[in-house]
């Protein structure tokens, strides 16, 4: 088992076009470090000065990690992590 990570279209250049990749770690930060070791450059697209980039949203099982503990958010095997660029929402 591992943690499933969904990659948005604009970042698939770093994953050889894969929509979904797998990684390991006990926190989101460790997971991103693991992903970066397998998909060089991906970490830099997600992080900025040690935090998530302003226009990058990361969801753990559909909940925004910024409200869960940021990069320190615990992750477990079987979790799903979704990465999406911040866009103007609907409902407007």
């Amino acid at each position, binding site marked *: 088992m591992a943690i499933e990570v969904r990659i*948005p*279209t*604009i*970042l698939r250049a770093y994953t050889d076009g894969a929509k979904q990749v797998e990684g390991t770690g006990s926190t989101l930060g460790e997971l991103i470090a693991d992903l970066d070791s397998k998909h060089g450059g991906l970490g830099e*697209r997600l992080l900025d000065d040690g935090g998530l*980039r*302003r*226009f*990058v*949203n990361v*969801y753990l099982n*559909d*909940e*925004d990690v*910024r*409200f*869960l503990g940021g990069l320190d958010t615990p992750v477990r095997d079987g979790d799903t992590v*979704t990465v*999406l*660029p*911040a*866009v*103007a*929402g*609907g*409902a*407007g």
Partner: protein
Amino acid sequence: MRYENLLDSLGGTPLVGLPRLSPSATVRLWAKLEDRNPTGSVKDRAAFYMVTQAEKDGLLSPGSTIIEPTSGNTGISLAMVAKLREYRLIVVMPENTSEERRQLLRMYGAEVIESPAAGGSNEAVRLAKQIAGEHPDWVMLYQYGNEANARAHYETTGPELLADLPEITHFVAGLGTTGTLMGVGRYLRERKPAAKIVAAEPRYGELVYGLRNVDEGFVPELYDESVLTTRFSVSSADALRRTRELVASEGIFAGISAGAALHAGLAMAAKAVAEGERADIVVLIADAGWKYLSTGAYDGTLEEAEGRLEGQLWA
């Protein structure tokens, strides 16, 4: 209820219990029916406040032109207000929005400029800013950054909720411009510091996230993360499923963003049950289902409906 004119009837919408969707007698869900506004959506509040503020600021007078990026509801609300106040309205709207919205806008006399589907509302915002830049005499109210948008909810929606449900513990709404959540959230937190403010963000098909790089992303200027307790990304499939549950369980024919809000509300309800806490959770129903009939959201199996919704902006 009697009013002098349509605009006077704004707000004061019903708050109805959802007894069949509520998990227990101590963890209850409520629906704020914002479809009961003059043009049928929560956006009437923001549109009225933004236009009124622009009039106070001396930016608008009869004959003025308003331009606004919108995925539909704000445009329809503005079109009604503009019609009554004699303004010309141009809306910039993504082409992947429902046909009903286009027809309603034209009916009210608005002009519609379509922005490309790829990029969703980001493109509508970009294009509207560009056009506004070329026409300095036009007024862009700019709902994503206009404080009057959030203030409408601080001054009306929030007080209505607290008056109807003093025991409110959670407020859940869709996240678009963020105006509803910011306004209601600030109002409730000042009076009930423990209130949980929960955002349900629509998660669309890939087309909508078709940016060239992440630095082109967009966060509305109104957004203040500190007002929220948490934020859920809700898939089209989950939003559709909950929209149908609203009809099946409670008889409420709502738009798809209401399904997304209900999905987040039920997640908070399950959490309250697990933790043994009392909860009174308000879910905001932004509009009714009429404008989405042509998307096929209510017809056939969920899988069919989900397929038809792919690439559409449903909130």
